[in-house]
C-alpha cells in the first residue's frame, strides 16, 4: 500500500524547516514513538540540508508506507546536483567537504531503519530512507 506523497521543493534554509515540520507531523500521525520521531526528524533535517547545500536544491517526498507487518514512513530526497564521487568516503564519520561536522550523511543512516542511496557523478543524488513503527 502506498499513499499519495507529500512533496516539498527544497531551495532555501526555510524549506529545510518546512521539511522538518512536515516529517514531524507525519511521524506523529503514524504514531511513531517520541524517540523515533526525533530520530526521523533529525535524519530528515540532515538529508534535506545536504540536498540544499551539496545538491543545490531538490525535492523531498514523504510517504506513509505499509508492509505485511507494520506501518512506516518513507522519505525520498532527490537532487540533480553534482552527485557523490566517492560514496564510501562520503559515508565516513567526520569526512566533510562543506565545513560541517561530517556526520550528517553517516549519522542519518544510523538514525533510520532503511537507507539507500543512488548517485552518479553529474547525475544527481537520490536518497531514500524508511523508518518503521515498532
Amino acid at each position, binding site marked *: 500500500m502506498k499513499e499519495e506523497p507529500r512533496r516539498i521543493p527544497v531551495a532555501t*534554509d526555510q524549506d529545510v524547516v518546512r521539511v522538518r515540520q512536515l516529517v514531524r507531523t507525519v511521524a506523529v500521525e503514524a504514531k511513531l514513538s517520541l*524517540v523515533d520521531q*526525533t530520530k526521523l*526528524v*533529525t535524519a530528515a533535517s540532515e538529508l534535506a540540508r545536504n540536498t540544499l547545500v551539496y545538491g543545490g536544491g531538490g525535492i523531498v517526498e514523504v510517504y506513509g508506507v505499509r508492509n505485511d507487518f507494520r506501518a512506516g514512513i518513507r522519505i525520498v530526497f532527490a537532487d540533480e546536483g553534482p552527485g557523490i564521487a566517492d560514496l564510501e568516503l562520503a559515508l565516513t564519520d567526520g569526512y566533510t567537504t562543506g565545513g560541517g*561536522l561530517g556526520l*550528517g550523511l553517516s549519522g*542519518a543512516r544510523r*538514525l533510520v531503519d532503511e537507507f539507500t542511496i543512488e548517485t552518479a557523478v553529474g547525475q544527481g543524488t537520490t536518497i531514500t530512507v524508511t523508518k518503521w513503527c515498532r
Partner: protein
Amino acid sequence: MALSPEESGRLADLLKEHADGLVGRWAELVGVTLQGRMTRPELERQTRELQRGFQQAFAAGARDLADEEAAELRAQLGELSATRARQGFSANETAVSVFAFKQVLLGILGDAADVQTLRDYVAFTAFVDQAALLTFDTFVRVREALIADQAEQLLELSTPVVKLWEGVVAVPLVGTLDSARAQVVMERLLQTLVDTGSPYAIIDITGVPAVDTQVAQHILKTVVAARLMGADCVISGIRPQIAQTIVALGIEFGDIATKASLADALRYVLGKNSYKVVVAKRTER
C-alpha cells in the same frame, strides 16, 4: 492601452463635473467592503483626494499611469495602500478602493449608448486597472517590509541571556537554531560574559525540537568561544530522545558538561563554586 489626449481631456471634465456625487457614491461602495473599520468622514476625505488626483492627472494630459503627469497620482496611490497595509487591511480590501471607481463612473455615464462613451469607459478602466495594480504592488512591498522587520525583532526577542546567580548566566534556546540565530546567541552570550564577569554559562536546549549536526556545531562553537574568554559552559535540557539521537548521529560533546535539566546544571555550577544547597532548618521556639 494608453488614453488618447481627447479621452483624458473628456474624462477630466467628466470627473470635475460630477465630483461631489462621485465621491459620495465611491466612499459608499468602499465603505461596504471595509465594513465600518474606517469612519465615513475619513473615507470621504480619502476618496475625495483620490478623485482629485485622477482628475488632475487627466487634466494635465496623463495618458498612462507611468506618465510624468500622473506622478502625483502614483504617489497618492502608494501612500494610500501603504497606510492600508499598516492598518492591517487585506490586499483585496485595498485594491477594491480603486476598483470601485470603475463602477462609480459607469453610474455617471448613465444610459448614453454611443460608441464614444464606450471607448472612453474602456480606456478609463484600463487606466484604473493599472492604478489598482500599483496599489497592490505597494501593498505587498509594505507588507514584506513589515514581515522583515518582525523577523528581525523576533530574532532579538527569542535570544535572551539571563542571570541565574552571581557569576552564572543562562541562555534558554527556544525553536529552530539556524546560522543567523546562532550568531546572535553567540554574540549576546559573549557580551554578557564580559559585562557581568561571569565565569559560568549554561546553554539550555529544552526548547530546541531537534538537535542535528548543524545545531550541535553551532552550540559547540559557542562553547569554544566562551572558553576562550575563560568561561565554562554547561549544556542543559538534554531530553532522552535528544540524547539517543545525538549518540546515533555520532556527535561528541567531549569534556563539555551536559545535564538533563536546567536545575541540574545550576546545582552543578553552584557546587563548583563551593555553594551548597541545603534545606533550611525550621527554627524551634
